């Protein structure tokens, strides 16, 4: 048992060392948001980027599909973009210029965006399908 525990600890050390080397070689910070509209257009047949609102930290954005009016949330995770179509069951609240989304999503529960036109987006989101 002690031998197995020791083996597990050594393996954990190896994982940490390899992750550390990867961080040294490639960095650890999240990248800034690339063209999220283009990302969605690649993944969703028929998607046409409409209005886009980038959060102040450039790590998240709201993007409208000009084809059907649907609104998508895009967030950066590492160097990649993760998107979600926002539907009625998304809880959205606003405090000044800060919009907060509470999603029923195990890996993306809460996201906050700082937008100059937060009030307008809040109104649209609460009325959108």
């Amino acid at each position: 048992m002690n031998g197995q525990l020791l083996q597990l600890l050594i393996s954990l050390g190896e994982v940490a060392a390899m992750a550390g080397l990867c961080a040294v070689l490639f960095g650890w910070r999240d990248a800034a948001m690339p063209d999220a509209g283009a990302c969605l257009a690649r993944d969703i047949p028929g998607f046409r980027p409409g209005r886009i609102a980038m959060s102040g930290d450039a790590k998240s954005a709201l993007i409208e599909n000009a084809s059907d009016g649907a609104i998508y949330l895009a967030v950066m995770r590492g160097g990649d973009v993760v998107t979600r179509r926002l539907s009625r069951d998304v809880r959205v609240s606003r405090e000044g210029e800060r919009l907060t989304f509470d999603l029923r999503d195990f890996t993306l529960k809460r996201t906050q965006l700082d937008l100059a036109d937060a009030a307008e987006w809040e109104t649209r989101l609460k009325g959108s399908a």
Partner: protein
Amino acid sequence: MMPFDPVTMATPAFVVLVIAEMLFVRFTGRGRFEAKDTAASLAMGLGSVVVGALFAFIFIGFARLIQPYALFHIGWSWGAAAACFVLDDLRYYLWHRASHRVRWLWADHVNHHSSQHYNLSTALRQPWGGFLALPGLLFIAPLILLGFPLTMIAFVHGLNLVYQFWIHTESIGRFPRWIEAAMNTPSHHRVHHATNARYLDANYAGVFIVWDRMFGTFVEETQEDAPRYGIVGQIASFNPLRIALHGWVSLGSDLIRARNAREFAGYLLAPPGWSPDGSRDTSDSIKARWADFPAAQTPAE
């Protein structure tokens, strides 16, 4: 008696090759790494070994239960091991295909596909919930019932896993045509991990790509549509525990919401994305929409 455990023997090579690929990618730009993603994949790999050891008794118990009904008693020989290897690879193809088409199995297998990166560390991103994906056991039953020794089945299964490690890379382009025709290669497996509509539900092979060619699931990688990796609804976490559980949590919440037996069975056994009202996307509906949009079939980049 199993000659040796191929996965245990190969683990030091896995470590060396992941580090070698990191350095290769850093200095050539051929491929992509991300530290948080790699850390999550490596942790998933270690966790799967621990969980697999803890729940190995389920597989052993199942095997011992059906072994008395074996048709033959095949002894250890390299010829038998070779036959077992080929049959196990067919078993892998069938199990793998089911794992993409049956939500119960996908809830576990989705973890292996949850990275937006495709490098050797992705090969180690293995699920933790195999003991919950019980129908998966059925795929191993024919080999046991044919009479292959359990240690031989475990041995060839290990070899199969070791083979599949090195094909998780963007650092290797394509091999000569005769190799690409018969074997699973990095090119074929990039297609399998891609989320591009044209590549969904393709190339399930483990070692021999001939199974996909035989059963009509083969898709060639094209330069015009470079693979983008991950899953249709990309996950937004690098936390290994969240990664390991997200498929099960999603399935569980749907099962709880099911209003009748038909919906329950649909959520459990229909392809991922199935919903009673058809409001969600399945790979079939995505491919159908993609086929309707010619512009989407020839990306500008």
